[in-house]
């Protein structure tokens, strides 16, 4: 059966589309983009107005609309694949009009498609860059069509297209358009006079830039010509790398290559002499195997697969993906999954540490399993200091304070986060809940009205809007009722973490999470007398036996003070624990208190104990606080 080149390459294109969809859904996971960037799109003129005041804003608006569907992993991947493939098909059509039948049709499509997906391997990638480029492709295609039919008219139309594109998709798209159309205009119109389009287009593009900056838009020059915009928040500060530069350069690059290729006289590829045919059979010219379509296409396909694998491996940061997944699981309160998933991250990270502690607290086993994750940062892994993290920790910090019942602090960090990510539905939801807890129904209603303009929040809004109109619903909501009981009423200023935890526990002795965090704070900060001072309240929680880390800490206290606190009964601390502590000390002594020498054996037997932490991991011992890892 004879396979036509077109059909075969179409089949291969279909194959890579499916492979791309799979890769986007399973490797990149647009859901993580959605979660990390906290994408929020709202209906209404006010929201659109924010995007209409700067060049590229309209493309950003469209990108915002599309990328909100990243919340659905499969559909989000489909959007990514669709946009990348539309770019590929547009490029194919432009090149076909430009040069006739394309031999490397598959490669052209595949490279553009691959880059369109590859750029998303960075989770800070702003999707508007893809949409801006898509508009540049569309405008270039439009120009190509017009130029092929009415060359002179196309020149007159060019400034209009360029100015419009500049407004819709900003400077970098204009650059792609200007360069591509200049090549097309020269190639499609053979007369030398057409060479003048290069300076003419360049001059006009420069004029658009200049007048845009000087007379129209309140925007920095960098944001006018850059592929992506430099703007807060810091945690989403995307640094353009090779993939995005290649992505923007690929269309003019292909046009340039094809144009140069067309300048050379074509040499006919002569087929080998036809084999002697049997009687009645047509003589078929023998084509060398390397000129056969199937071979050429298969080579291209293999090269594409290898290149795709290599580039994804190089540019997709799996650690970042894992960290974002942890944050995503925490956002969705999938605590058991979070703990499971955290095991796949071998490298220590303070964000994982923070969320693992939170997960344990939610599952009620923080005092039991505290040291199952290495607490290398001590209390800084329990509470991230948001003031040093410029934005990226605002939401988790707000979440933690909400968990603890500290509405004032939760609201404070939620507002900081809302300032940096004003469209984040997650933060607005947090503000709704805080105001419901605080009985500020009008404010909760205001935030709900904003959220109601978000397509994906309708169900959530519908549920909580009823709480605003019928306050009995809020009062009977278990979570809200609990937080109302826990939130402190005392007016204090400059409440630090420790004072805040004390305040929470003093406000309501039923606040088990605050109690766990308070004792954990003392444990991680090695404040043993204070730990014991508060440990005496353990009986309030009907604990028959102390959880492991409390026992271990108490054992150290007893050893240091050589006395049992008055509230400690025989059954409070297990004999096993005391025996293990004795064993632990024996090992240390057997190494003549040479701690580095004893570390390996102690790690093997006691690596997840408070005793090991005290000697080897405590930041007061290791001084590691200056070398915090960063999610970026």
């Amino acid at each position, binding site marked *: 059966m004879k396979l036509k080149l077109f059909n075969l390459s179409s089949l291969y294109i279909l194959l890579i589309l499916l492979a791309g969809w799979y890769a986007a859904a399973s490797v990149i996971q647009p859901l993580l983009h959605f979660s990390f960037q906290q994408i929020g799109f709202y209906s209404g003129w006010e929201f659109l107005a924010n995007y209409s005041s700067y060049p590229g804003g309209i493309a950003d608006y469209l990108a915002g609309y599309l990328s909100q569907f990243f919340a659905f992993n499969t559909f989000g991947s489909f959007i990514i694949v669709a946009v990348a493939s539309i770019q590929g098909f547009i490029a194919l059509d432009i090149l076909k009009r430009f040069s006739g039948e394309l031999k490397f049709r598959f490669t052209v499509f595949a490279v553009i498609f691959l880059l369109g997906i590859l750029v998303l391997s960075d989770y800070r990638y702003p999707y508007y860059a893809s949409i801006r480029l898509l508009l540049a492709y569309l405008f270039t295609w439009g120009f190509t069509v017009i130029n092929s039919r009415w060359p002179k008219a196309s020149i007159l139309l060019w400034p209009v297209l360029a100015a419009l594109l500049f407004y819709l998709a900003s400077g970098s798209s204009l650059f792609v358009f200007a360069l591509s159309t200049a090549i097309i205009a020269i190639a499609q119109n053979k007369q030398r006079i057409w060479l003048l389009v290069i300076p003419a287009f360049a001059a006009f593009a420069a004029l658009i830039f200049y007048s845009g900056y000087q007379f129209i838009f309140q925007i920095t020059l960098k944001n006018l010509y850059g592929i992506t915009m430099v703007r807060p928040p810091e945690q989403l500060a995307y640094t353009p790398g090779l993939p995005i530069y290649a992505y923007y350069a690929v269309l003019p690059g292909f046009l340039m290559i094809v144009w140069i290729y067309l300048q050379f006289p074509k040499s006919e590829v002569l087929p080998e002499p036809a084999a002697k045919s049997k009687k009645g059979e047509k003589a078929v010219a023998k084509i060398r195997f390397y000129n056969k379509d199937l071979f050429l296409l298969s080579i291209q396909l293999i090269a594409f697969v290898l290149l795709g694998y290599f580039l994804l491996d190089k540019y997709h940061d799996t650690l970042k993906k894992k960290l974002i997944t942890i944050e995503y699981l925490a956002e969705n309160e999938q605590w058991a999954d979070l703990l499971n998933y955290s095991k796949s991250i071998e490298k220590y990270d303070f964000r994982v540490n923070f969320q693992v502690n939170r997960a344990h607290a939610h599952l009620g086993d923080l005092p039991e399993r505290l040291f199952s994750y290495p607490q290398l940062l001590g209390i800084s892994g329990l509470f991230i200091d948001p003031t040093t993290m410029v934005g990226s920790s605002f939401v988790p910090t707000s979440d933690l304070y909400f968990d603890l019942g500290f509405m004032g*602090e939760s609201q404070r960090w939620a*507002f900081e986060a809302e300032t940096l990510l004003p469209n984040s539905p997650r933060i607005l939801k947090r503000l709704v809940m805080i105001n419901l807890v605080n009985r500020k129904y009008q404010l909760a209603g205001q935030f709900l009205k904003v959220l109601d303009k978000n397509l994906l929040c309708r169900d959530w809004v519908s549920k909580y809007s009823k709480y605003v109109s019928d306050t009995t619903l809020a009062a009977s909501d278990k979570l809200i009722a609990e937080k109302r009981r826990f939130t402190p009423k005392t007016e204090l200023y400059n409440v630090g973490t420790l004072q805040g935890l004390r*305040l929470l526990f003093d406000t309501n002795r039923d606040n088990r999470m605050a109690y766990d965090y308070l004792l954990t704070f003392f444990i991680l900060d090695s404040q043993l007398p204070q730990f014991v001072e508060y440990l005496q309240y353990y009986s309030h929680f009907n604990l028959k036996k102390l959880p492991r880390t409390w026992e271990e800490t108490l054992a150290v206290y007893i050893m240091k003070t050589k006395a049992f606190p008055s509230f400690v009964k025989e059954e409070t601390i297990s004999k096993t624990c005391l025996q293990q502590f004795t064993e632990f000390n024996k090992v240390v002594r057997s190494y003549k208190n040479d701690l580095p020498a004893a570390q390996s054996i102690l790690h093997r037997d006691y690596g997840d104990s408070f005793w090991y932490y005290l000697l080897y991991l405590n930041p007061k011992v290791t001084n590691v606080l200056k070398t915090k890892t960063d999610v970026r």
Partner: protein
Amino acid sequence: MIKKSIYLFAALILITLNSCQSKIGNFAEVSRLPAIFPDYTDILIPPNMAPLNFTVQEPGTEYEVRIHTGEDNRLVVRSKSPSIQMGINSWHNLLKKGMGEKLFIDVFVRQKDGNWQKFQPITNEISKEGIDNHLAYRLINTAYGVWNNLGIYQRNLENFDQKPILENKSFEYGCLNCHSFRHNDPNSMMIHTRAIHGGTIIIQDGKLRKIDTKNKYTLSAGTYPCWHPDGKHIAYSVNKINWHFGTGETRMEVSDEYSDIVVYDIEKNTLTTSPKVSTASRENLPNWSPDGKFIYFTSAPVVTNLDDRIQGKYDLLRIAYDVNTNVWGSVDTIISSREIGKSISFPKISPNGKFLMFCTSDNGYFTIHHPQTDLNLLNLETGEYHKMEINSPQTDSYHCFSDAGHWFVFSSKRIDGLFTRPFFSYLDDSGKATKPFVLPQEDPEFYNTFLKNYNIPELITGEVTVSPLDIRDKVLETAVAAKLDPSVDTLYMKSHLSAPKK
């Protein structure tokens, strides 16, 4: 023939549509006022104010609102939605004809059963005196430590047009604050920019300068400003500011470790101060008297500990200062915080020099975060002062008089307790203020979804015509350092600044 047929057809459609909107025949009277948002009831309206669009918060399927001053001066709005939006021209015609008269608003609501209800008419009044036609303000989020998109904007009060004066996206998202005008004049303005491309931008009659007002003999760059009436001098406080976060209703407190007052001479580009306003106490928030002979300011005792610093109360003082001779008078206490039991902030004198409006709160001076902050009025002729009747249980703070001196704007969180909105009121010659009303918006539901705050509302008599792009270009330039006036006692300032602070 075809053309005529089209016209006839169009006319028929119009007649049909009009007849569909049948006139209200019978209606039931409801013996109360209708609930409307924003609250535009029982207020005095400037004759040049934009339409007071509102939402009728009564259930119904159709609404008709008749706004009138008399039989021949009326405006009718019929709407299927409770959102009542009036045409700008017809509204202004109505106000113009009815100046000095009562303005009635009759609200009719159609019930599900098709019957109409009429509520008791809302009665307002149209003032004979107009308000300055523009309002300048900063729009900021509710965060305390970080900022993102910031801008200073001007709103035409006669319609709904808002234009930027300067937005921080034009200079790499630096901070900008404390816009100030010389006696409501849009041609004399200053803005501070901070963090990135920092400095003070001074705009006078289209000429722009960028100044660095920090000097080694001053505590900081100029902070809270006030223009001298001559337009050649600006008094600033210089402050060492810190933030403290609270667990209660006052979510954040801003306090000064120390602060002084300086005067900047625009023409000479010099800064001056005096040991009388650069003491160990915390002098703050200067405000010139309309004749330019006195600086009114607040002052709190020296800080000895953190509690002092946060809980300290400010007195209201004044000092004579002659800008021509650079001679300082002596300090006089106008109102003592001990006497009033409150801390005083933001003293502002009415243009006729008769009243001084100020804020009071339990402590400190950064009143916008204090729910208990109230506006007060001091009669400078009699020395009597009182808490104004316009206060609400929520924050009522920063204020600014209009050019003519009767209308004023102030910041209030009375709508929801969180977001700051500008409210207007009229102060008569006896010191009585009318019920305040919020800045009208085209969409009456605007304040229910707008999550930014109106910060430092300043009334101005016209539009700031200097382009935001010109201001941006100036912001991007390097600031010119202000020099110290030779008359400043540098030895004193040196020892004052090096004194141990707590």
